């Protein structure tokens, strides 16, 4: 069995303009969403209290909200979590208030209302710790971006570097855009997912670019778009199967991993899909438009041999 028995090269570069416009639009929407709505940061970054409880029967969220507000928690958010039996209670952090005991008081209030309530999870993050995690997370993201840019800048001829950097940053912005647009909760695990995608996405760009470089040497008579089309077509089988396999496991996490892993797996899914898309349909056209030609690549003779084996 083989999925990709492709005789002729697929003319990807013919559609380059369209795909790039689509990409640019998505990029703009993503940036707009981040700017307008911001990320729905989890309490790990903002500080606050989160209590997850479980009831043996379906519960009325409104009733819980009223009783908690009756106890003096006016800015409390109460919502169902997955099922009607699971309830998530959130409180923002308050400066200068020792909030370590808040979770105990909430549980106490709930217990007096319904003794069957079962505590599942409490998270309390003080404002200072939240601030530190926020800064640390931002710094990690920034450093990884810079590191990857530096790697790509050294690894390739400058046209390729610029294209790969644009493609990679595009992926990150798109993931963040999704989280901003749909106001999914952005937690530490999601940040870990974004960092993983950065590394993952580079892999794909490197594979395609290496093949392009190799093709320039082998296909002496072909035009630039033909060289690129051939490179993409020849690597397509590998690309789809590798990423398909990864996505299988990520999907399994998404569907069966429970709430803890859900948004992590979601970030990975978006990242994998856009990672492939951007490497093939964003990075390659940019290389083409930046005017790459055979003469750019000839002096570096040794590179390009056995390129597929390299990450």
């Amino acid at each position, binding site marked *: *069995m*083989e999925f990709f028995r492709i005789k002729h090269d697929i003319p990807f570069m013919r559609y380059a303009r369209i795909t790039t416009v689509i990409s640019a639009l998505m990029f703009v929407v993503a940036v707009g969403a981040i700017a307008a709505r911001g990320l729905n940061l989890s309490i790990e970054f903002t500080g606050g209290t989160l209590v*997850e409880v*479980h009831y043996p029967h379906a519960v009325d969220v409104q009733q819980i909200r009223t009783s908690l507000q009756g106890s003096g928690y006016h800015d409390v958010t109460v919502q169902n979590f997955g099922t009607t039996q699971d309830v998530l209670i959130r409180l923002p952090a308050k400066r200068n208030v*020792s909030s*370590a*005991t808040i*979770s*105990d008081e909430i*549980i*106490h209030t709930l217990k*007096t209302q319904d003794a069957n309530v*079962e*505590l*599942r*999870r*409490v*998270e*309390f*993050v*003080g404002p*200072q*710790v939240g601030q530190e995690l926020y800064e640390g997370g931002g710094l990690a993201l920034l450093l990884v971006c810079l590191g990857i840019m530096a790697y790509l800048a050294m690894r390739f001829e400058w046209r390729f570097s610029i294209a790969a950097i644009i493609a990679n940053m595009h992926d990150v912005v798109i993931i963040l855009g999704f989280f901003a647009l749909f106001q999914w909760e952005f937690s530490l695990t999601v940040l870990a997912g974004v960092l993983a995608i950065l590394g993952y996405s580079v892999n794909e760009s490197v594979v395609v670019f290496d093949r392009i470089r190799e093709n320039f040497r082998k296909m002496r008579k072909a035009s630039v778009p033909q060289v690129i089309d051939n490179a993409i077509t020849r690597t397509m089988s590998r690309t789809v*199967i590798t990423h*398909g*396999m990864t996505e*299988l*496991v*990520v*999907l*399994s*996490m998404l*569907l*069966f*991993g*429970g709430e*803890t*892993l859900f948004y992590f797996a979601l970030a990975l899914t978006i990242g994998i899909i856009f990672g492939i898309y951007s490497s093939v349909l964003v990075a390659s056209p940019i290389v083409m438009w930046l005017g790459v030609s055979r003469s750019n690549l000839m002096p570096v003779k040794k590179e390009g041999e056995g390129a597929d084996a390299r990450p």
Partner: protein
Amino acid sequence: MNKYPLWKYLLILAVLVAGVFYALPNLYGEDPALQITTSRGTPIDIATRSKVQDTLKQSGITSRPIESVANGLLVRFSNTEDQLKAKDIVGTSLGDDYVVALNLAPATPAWLSAIGAAPMYLGLDLRGGVHFQMQVDTEAALAQAEERYVGDIRTLLRNEKLRYLTVTRRSDAGLEVKFRAAGERDQALAKMKTEFPSLVLRGEERGAEFYITASISEPERREIQKFAVQQNITALRNRVNELGVSEPVIQQQGADRIVVQLPGVQDTARAKEILGATATLEFRLVDTEHNVQDAVAGRMPPNAKLYKERGGAPILLQKRVIITGQDIVDASSGIDQRDGSPAVFISLDGKGSKMMYNITKDNVGKPMAVVFIESKSETRMVDGKAVKTRKMVEEVINVATIREALSKRFQITGLDSSNEARDLSLLLRAGALAAPMDIVEERTVGPSLGAENIAKGFNSTLIGFAAIAIFMSVYYRVFGVIASVSLFMNMVLLMAILSMLRPRSRCRVSRVSHSPSAWPSMRTSSSSSVYARSCAVAIHLRHQFMPALSVPGALFWTRISQH
């Protein structure tokens, strides 16, 4: 066909076999168990073991044979119900001197344990439990240190008959001593420079007024902050014992944070109450004029109070308190240089040393006791209402005879072992005034959520792996099957490595210092009776200069100049 030398195949085989063995313990699961240790960390004897066995037999709970583990006993049960029932019964029959903790003991077979294989250490999100991160208010510790210096400077100037106007703490940190004349100021400056080497001192003139400004030097500041954090860790460690947690983790994180992880603890409210308890110490003279038995029988002499020693024996102490934990600057354990026996070194602040001297100089030869007092608030449900009660636990942790007048620094000797010396120094430090602490982060995961996380994680791995194996085998045939097998081995090796990585060491906090050659001392006899204890002792004070050697970069040591 690829050909490789034989040794490469053998190496691969050896790695795979080792991987399988070390990953294997994860398949055996865990038994509900009780872990029994003494609350003082001493080894458990045979008598306790048979007592536990008898208690279980009498109440009809079936358990596996009792195992001896590192400084304790482990009793396994076939189900959680038996485990919970047994905890209550064994807990009450053994009393307060033992910690009976619920535990999930890995059911690793002996032959696997023999090669050091153990299951993976699960995080709290999988096991269930509490994680606290606490911030120690080191600024407050510095403020306390400055307050102490204010007292010490006053004492020094008064003793040296140097006239000063005021000694104050400035609002922007640092101290200020005001003088009327430049001559007195300069004399005082010279004296203070030798007495307080860890203060940065400067003379200043403002108009017609003469000042000495003092600030705590940078190395000393760091030392004070470090000490405050260690003191809090010590206090926490003591209290965690009380919670009955089988594998607590108490660690310093960064410069001024402490992480406490209590696997299996669900009642966070109680955990917070116990961790937040405050402890203090009192030094009191033992009432030797009245009979303890009379007091126990109800004929309480005036000016005395009945206490219990750690062993449970009653002891009569005078009502008057000599010093409290607030007066203790440092306590550390080490070796007495005169006879090489274990000792605890105590340093007092200016006020404390004066009180100590005044009382001990008239009571040489008499026994003195150290009382450890822990006050905690507990919330109990009474008729559906939460009632907060404050509870005081008072315990005599040491009785020693005064061998000479004691002052700023003295030592307690005659302790049974260096372990006991360490424990006593820990308690003394836990009772000394510690810097306030705030919980800045809390994560609690309920046991049902933990179990669910394990199940879900396992399922998603299994399904993901199965999906890949099926696709690979269909798409690439034989190659796919081989790839799947190697992928599986990859997973086994990963599990093996994760299982071999044990968590970082638990809460072991101890500071041993070198004993400065001659510390005035107080001696604890190892004999069990209180009075025998008090008699076997001699105390001597050498009026000597104490070199500032004990803790590196340390708290100040000054001359004792009473005689």
